[in-house]
Structure formats: C-alpha cells, structure tokens
C-alpha cells in the first residue's frame, strides 16, 4: 500500500491540523527552551518522589513515589499517547540531567553496531515487567524510588559513554513502550511540504545547525537518526523538537493524521528501515501486546490459583521459577503458537503473495504482528486508566500528608477519603478502550491483508482476525475478573 493512499499520511488536498500553528502552543514549541521548560517540573517531581520513596511512609498508598509512579504517571502517559503523541519523551526529566552532564564532558564512542536494534530494549522491557511482579514494585515506595534512581544513573552512564541519543533509541524500556504506543497517536512530527525539503541543501534537521567558522553545532539535528523528509510515523521519535528548531525553513510541524495508519504501510523508514524486515521491532510489538495482558493478569485473582498450580507441578515454593514459566508462556509460547498458526493459515489460504512468490512464515508473521499493537494498547489503556481514574484524587491526601510530615500542614489535614471515579463508571471506559483496540487491530490487519492480497483480502485477513478475537476475549475476561493485589503471590 502506498503511503499516499492512507488518509492522514499524505494528504495533498486536505491540510492536516498542525499543533505548531496553534497560537501560543506553536510559539512555545518553537522556543528553544521549550523542552527544558517542560522537563524541569518533571525533574523536580522525580526528586520529590525519590526522597519521599526513600524517607517517607513505607505504605504505598501514602507515598508519593508509588502513588505518582504507578497511578498517575502511567495513566497520564497512556492517555496523552492516545490523545496527542509521545509528549512524555519530550518532557523526559532523564534527558535534562543528561544534557547538563554533557556540558561537563562529551561522549566519545558510537553505540556498538551489534546492539543497534531493539533486542536489548526488548529484554529490558521484559525485565521491568518481571521485576514489577517479582518484587511487587507497586507496593514498595523504597524500590520504586530506587527504580527512578537507577533510571537516572543508567541514562548518565549510557549517554555518558555513547554519542547521540543511544539510551532513548536502543535502551530505554519506557521509550520503547512510548514509540510503539505512539504509532497509534493522532499527531506526528513531520515535514509540511516535501518540496521544501527537496530544495534544501543544508539538511539541518539531521545534521544540526553549525556555526559558520568554528563548525560547532549550535542547534542539534535529530539524535535518533530520523531524517525528516523520509521519516514515516512516530517510531523512534521522541518529539524532542530538535528538528523543528534546526529546520531553517520552518517546514516541520506536529501534524494530525489517522492513528495507526503507519502500521498499515511498509515503506522504507528513515532510521528504521522496513517494518516487515525488523524481527526485533516485531518482538517489541509482541512484548507490548502480550505483555499488556500479562501485566493485567498479574493483578487478578486467577493468577494465584495458576501460580499455586505451577508451584505444585514444579515442586517449588519460590516465586521466581513460577513467574518465569508464566512469562515464558505469555511472551513466547502463546505468541509463537497464535502467530505461527495464523501465518501458516494465511500462507495456505492465500497461496502466493507479493510478486507471485510463496512467502516464508516468519516474514509473514512479522508483517502482521504490527496489526496486534492496537489491541495491546487498548489493554494498557484499560489497565492503567483503571488505576489512574479510580485513584485520581488520592494524590491530594498523599501530598497533604507529605507536607504535613514536614511540620507545616498548610494544605490542611489529609483527606484520605478522596479516591477517584467509581469503579463501575471506569469499567465502561475500560470496555470502550478494549473495543477501540480491537477495532483498530481489525482495521490494521485488514489493511495489511488488502495490500498483501488485493484479490482475496478476506483469506489473508481471517486468520489474523481470529487471533485478534482470541486476544480481545482474553482481555475482556481479564477485565471482569476480581482484582486481588497481593505482594505474596505464592502464599495462602
């Protein structure tokens, strides 16, 4: 499918909405210090969370580290990704510290060639999900604070040694989550007119602006190696706006588009290549999608029965091997079975694909894996928005309590009865997100099937629609399970 046939990707006849043209907002984003302005409040908040996590109440519901990390940050993150784009990476406080550190010294090395892919970050993403369950990070302010500290240190070490935005592109698990989720966002950093780029000789958006005599870079170009004229979609884009500031023609905007449209096409993308040839990206999409179900599964009652059963079968009482088995099943066995079967059926029913050749199973599975991303995002949205909305106001008493503990209760006594929206109201919103994700996945997989097999798109589509249906039923089942928050999975 050609990018120009996708609504919202290339629309020469209808001008997309441009956030950079919004009065006030556009001025702010064009301002060179817009990013630090957004980062500084988050950095202050991070420091407060670290201090409160280490020295504040040990109970998670009374601590800012746990309340803000596991309720508000995650909830706001997914909702902003859904409604706008990857604006969290724009306001990332870790990058502010990195910038300050880089004033003191300059990194010397290039990121190792062997690691210029997503495998390391996929592993770290899985590791975070695993440690979240194993150490019950949600119930420990102390561990949560240390997680934030570890993040800051990792950024400083990685980007201290390696040039460009190595941490963002190849390491950061939160960043990878944001990159995948932002493929469904309605906004994209993009050139306004390709002709302007064609005539441009300086290519400042990628090279950066340099002083004429000293040749020192005064405004950075894209550190993630995304060359704007051939950039497609939001993958790997941190919305840092370096390209906006560097472009001498003011030709880069934050343009509206059809969410998920970039998943339906497979052009060569700057800094990425072809989606269909990137097994590491497909693995990231699998962890994103199946990890969403796994993460929600860890919070419902049946998980304890499953863990006890596995513990009995394996004759172990420690949680690590049991969790290992569950993770292996959810993130490897289940995807391999489902995607493998769907790919095999697609090949059997469609026969010859592109250019009349019979397609191998793995590339076929890789290509359609991206179609599951909307389902995964629907599940993340449902899960995180549940915690966020049902605990929306809890940040008020926790903040009151934190200030009162300093001996100056100028916000009054903590109003502990403040919680959030009723669970039955939030459940309707959750169902809405799951339906939205399901519809999105069906649309993307059908788009891919149409592109693959214009004569018989239904044959290519049906196996993947069945996979979507299975995952959607699993998501709905999970959503209606009673929640059970335990820090001791194997006991009782």
């Amino acid at each position, binding site marked *: 499918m050609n990018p120009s046939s996708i609504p919202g990707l290339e629309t020469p006849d209808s001008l997309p909405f441009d956030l950079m043209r919004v009065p006030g907002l556009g001025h702010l984003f064009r301002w060179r210090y817009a990013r630090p302005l957004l980062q500084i409040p988050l950095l202050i908040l991070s420091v407060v969370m670290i201090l409160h996590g280490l020295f504040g109440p040990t109970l*998670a*519901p009374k601590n800012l580290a746990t309340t803000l990390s596991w309720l508000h940050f995650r909830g706001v993150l997914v909702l902003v990704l859904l409604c706008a784009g990857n604006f969290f990476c724009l306001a990332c406080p870790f990058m502010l510290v990195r910038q300050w550190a880089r004033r003191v010294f300059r990194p010397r090395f290039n990121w190792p060639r062997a690691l210029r892919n997503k495998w390391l970050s996929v592993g770290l993403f899985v590791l975070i999900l695993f440690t979240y369950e194993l150490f019950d990070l949600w119930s420990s302010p102390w561990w949560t604070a240390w997680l934030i500290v570890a993040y800051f240190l990792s950024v400083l070490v990685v980007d201290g040694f390696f040039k460009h935005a190595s941490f963002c592109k190849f390491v950061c698990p939160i960043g990878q989550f944001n990159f995948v989720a932002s493929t469904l966002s309605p906004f994209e950093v993009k050139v306004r007119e390709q002709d302007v780029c064609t005539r441009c000789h300086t290519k400042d958006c990628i090279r950066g602006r340099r002083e004429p005599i000293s040749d020192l870079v005064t405004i950075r170009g894209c550190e993630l190696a995304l060359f704007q004229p051939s950039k497609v979609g939001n993958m790997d884009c941190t919305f840092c706006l370096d390209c906006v500031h560097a472009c001498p023609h003011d030709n880069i905007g934050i343009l509206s588009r059809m969410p998920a449209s970039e998943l339906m096409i497979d052009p060569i993308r700057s800094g990425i290549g072809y989606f269909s040839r990137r097994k590491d990206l497909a693995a990231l999409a699998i962890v994103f999608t199946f990890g969403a179900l796994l993460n929600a599964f860890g919070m419902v009652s049946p998980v304890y029965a499953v863990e006890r059963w596995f513990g009995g079968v394996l004759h172990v009482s420690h949680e690590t091997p049991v969790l290992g088995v569950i993770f292996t099943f959810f993130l490897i066995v289940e995807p391999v079975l489902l995607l493998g079967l769907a790919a095999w059926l697609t090949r059997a029913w469609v026969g010859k694909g592109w250019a009349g050749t019979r397609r191998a199973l793995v590339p076929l599975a890789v290509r359609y894996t991206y179609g599951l991303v909307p389902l995964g995002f629907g599940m993340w949205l449902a899960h995180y928005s549940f915690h966020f909305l049902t*605990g929306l106001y809890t940040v008020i008493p926790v903040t009151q309590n934190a200030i009162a503990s300093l001996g100056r209760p100028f916000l009054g006594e903590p109003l502990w009865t*403040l*919680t959030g929206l009723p669970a039955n109201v939030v459940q309707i919103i959750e169902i809405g997100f799951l339906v939205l994700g399901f519809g999105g996945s069906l649309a993307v997989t059908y788009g891919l099937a149409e592109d693959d097999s214009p004569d018989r798109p239904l044959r290519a589509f049906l196996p993947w629609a069945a996979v979507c249906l299975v995952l959607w039923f699993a998501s709905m089942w999970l959503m209606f399970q009673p929640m059970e928050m335990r820090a001791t999975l194997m006991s*009782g």
Partner: protein
Amino acid sequence: MSYRFSVFYGFICAATLLIAGCSRPVEPRPFLAIEHEFSPEPARVGPATVTLKLADATGKPITGAHIAIEADMSHAGMSPLFAEAKEAGPGRYEAHLEFQMAGDWVILLHVMLPDGTRVERQIDVRGVRLN
C-alpha cells in the same frame, strides 16, 4: 579516561553510596504487647471483626486505651478504612472493618495509652480472600 570523566563517575558512585546509606532513625518504643485476632479467619472480602488484646510489660491488661484503626491496601489508589476499637473487656478491644477488595491489607493501629503515651503498630493481613 579524562579527568572530567573520572570526576563525573566518581560523583555518581559517591552519590549512589550516599543514598544507599540512608535509613530512617529508629526511635525507642514503649513496651506494649498487642495480640490480634480476625473473624472470619482467614480474612475475607466483606465485614470483619478485629479483636485486640493490650498488655503491659508484666502481662497486665491495659484498660482505658484509645485505639484508632486504619486499614490500607498494599497498592496505591485505594481509600483507607477507618474505625475505632471499643473496649469489650479488660484489655480487650474490638473493631469492625469491611474489606472491600481481595489482596494484602495493612492495619495501622494508632494507640493512645491511658497515660497519654502514643504508640503506632502495624499488622499485615496477607491475602484477604474473595468470598
């Protein structure tokens, strides 16, 4: 490795060790023996009664204490429950709670002894079950 590099990473290591060495000061606590019982046992979602028995160092029941109870879940975002324990016998106090969700709960006891001494204690209620 340059001097700046060494200084920078030295600073990171020092900061990490400094934070790792931080801990809360331990305050001496007055002796107070508190036994607790839940009904039903094991605790389930729904109404529950917690019975507390307070005794001093000699084992003598403590009467006339004021006990405020706060029950929290181990996850952020849940509203805590509050209750007052009533004296149901010499040194024996009862409070009624309603566990709203299965999972781990933490009961905080804010005890004021007859001599005005305040004592805080924590009881972990692991794995409150569904009905």
